[in-house]
C-alpha cells in the first residue's frame, strides 16, 4: 500500500510541483494550505511524513511542527521544512521545534525525493 505524505504550503503551484514529484515516486499526497488547514486534515489520517513551508498565514511552519509533535498519534512523524528561509537562526528554531530536515527553495526534486526516502516512516 502506498505511503501518504502531507505537503503544507500557502502556494498552490508549489504544492502541485511537490505533489507531482511525490506521486511520480509512488506516494499518496495530501495538501494543506497553511498550518491550521494541515492540522484539520491530520485527524484520523495515517501520515508517513510531512513537508512544510515556514512562512504561511494563519499558522506558520514552526508552530505547525510544535503542534504536530504535541499530538500523540503524530509525535514520531518526521517533518521536513521546505522554505525560502536562509538564515541559521530560523533553522535552529526549526530544529528546536522538532523538524528532521531543512530544504531550501528553489528545490531540486530528486534531492527532495532522496530526503523523503531517507526519513519516511516504514
Amino acid at each position: 500500500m502506498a505511503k501518504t505524505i502531507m505537503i503544507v504550503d500557502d502556494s498552490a503551484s508549489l504544492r502541485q510541483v511537490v505533489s507531482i514529484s511525490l506521486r511520480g515516486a509512488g506516494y499518496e499526497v495530501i495538501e494543506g494550505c497553511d498550518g491550521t488547514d494541515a492540522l484539520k486534515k491530520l485527524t484520523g489520517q495515517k501520515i508517513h511524513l510531512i513537508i512544510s513551508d515556514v512562512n504561511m498565514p494563519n499558522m506558520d511552519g514552526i508552530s505547525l511542527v510544535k503542534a504536530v509533535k504535541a499530538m500523540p498519534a503524530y509525535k514520531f512523524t518526521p517533518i521536513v521544512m521546505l522554505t525560502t528561509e536562509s538564515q541559521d537562526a530560523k533553522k535552529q528554531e526549526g530544529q528546536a521545534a522538532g523538524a528532521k530536515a531543512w530544504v531550501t527553495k528553489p528545490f531540486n526534486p530528486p534531492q527532495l525525493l532522496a530526503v523523503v526516502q531517507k526519513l519516511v516512516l516504514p
Partner: protein
Amino acid sequence: MPTSVQFLWLKGQFNSSLVGLVGGTGIVVAGGRGIVGVMAAAGLVCLGVLADIRQARRCSRSRDETASYVASTEQLGRDVLPVWSAHLESSRAQMEVAVAELTQRFAAIVDRLDQTLKTPLHGNQEHGLAEIFEQSNRELQSVLDSLHSAMESNRDMHAEVQRLDRFIEELQQMATEVAHIAFQTNLLAINAAIEAAHAGENGRSFGVLAQEVRKLSGVSGETGNRMSQKVKIISEAIAAVHHAAADSAKREESSAVASEAAIHRVLDQFRTVTQGLEHSAETLKQESAGIQTEVVEALVQLQFQDRVSQRMTHVRQNMERLPSLLTESLQAFDESGSLKPVDATALLAELEGSYVMADERATHAGDNTAGAPAISDEVTFF
C-alpha cells in the same frame, strides 16, 4: 502652544521693530531730544515695523506653503500609496492564480504522459508483437501443412486409381478369355452334335448333352460379352476419375503453391509492419518520457512565483506603513508647527527585518546584479 514659546515667537516677529525702537531711542538720547533726532528715531522705528511686517508676511507665506506641503505629503500617503499597494497586491494575486493554473495544466500533462508510458505497446497484455507474429506464422504454417497433407492424399488416391487400371486390363483379358472359351465350347458342342447325329439312336442322349453344352456356351458367351461391356464402362469411368483426379491434383498443387507464396508474402509484410510499429512505439515512448522530463523541469522553474510573491508581499506591507507615518507628521505640524521628519531609516530597517531570502538582502544592499537563485541541493539534516 506654551507661553514661553508664544513669547519667543512674538519676540521673533518684532525683532526689527525693537531694533528700530532701540536705535531711535538712542538717537533721541544722543541728540538731546531735538526734532531731527526724534524724526530720525521715528524713521528708524517705522523702518523696523515695516521690516517686521514684511518678515511676518514672508513667514506666514512660508508657513502656509509648509502646511500645504505637509498636507499634500499626508494626502500622498493616505490616497496614493494605498492605490499603489492595491495594484501591487492585485498583480501578485493574479500572477499566483495564473501560475497555479499553469502548474495544474502541466501537472495534468505529466499525469497523462505517465499513464501513456505505463500502457503496454499493444492490446495484448501478455505477449509482444513479435510473439504474436510468431504465433500467426505457426498457425498459418499448420494450415499449409494441412494443405500439403491433402495434396499427398490426392496423390495416393491417384496412385490407387492407376493401380485400378491394371485390374481393369486383367478383367478385360479375363472377359476375352471367357468369350473365347464360350466360342470354343460352342464349336465342341457343334462337333458333338454332328457326331451324335452320325451315331444315330445311340448318340441321341449325347446330342441332347451337346445341345445343352451349346446353350451353356451361349450363356457363357453372353456373360463374357456383358463382362466386357461392364469392364469397358468401369474402365471409362475410372479413366474419367483418373483424369479428374489428375486435374484436381494439378489445380490443388498450383493453389497450394500460390497460397504458400501469398502467405509468406503477407507474413513478410506483417513482420515489416509490426517491426515498424514496435520501433515507432518505442520512439514514441522515449519521446513521451523526454517530454515528461521537460515538463517537470518547467514546473520546477515555476517555483519563482513563490519567491516573487513573498518579495512583493514584504514590499507592500512596508509601503502600507508609510501613510500612518505621514499622518503622524502632519498631526505633529498642526499641533506644534514644527516638522517631524519621517524616519526612513526605521522604515528600511522594518523592511529588512521582514526579509527571508538572501537575494532580498542583496537587493536591499544595492546589489542588483544578483538574478534568481539556482535550483538548490542544499539540505540540512537535524
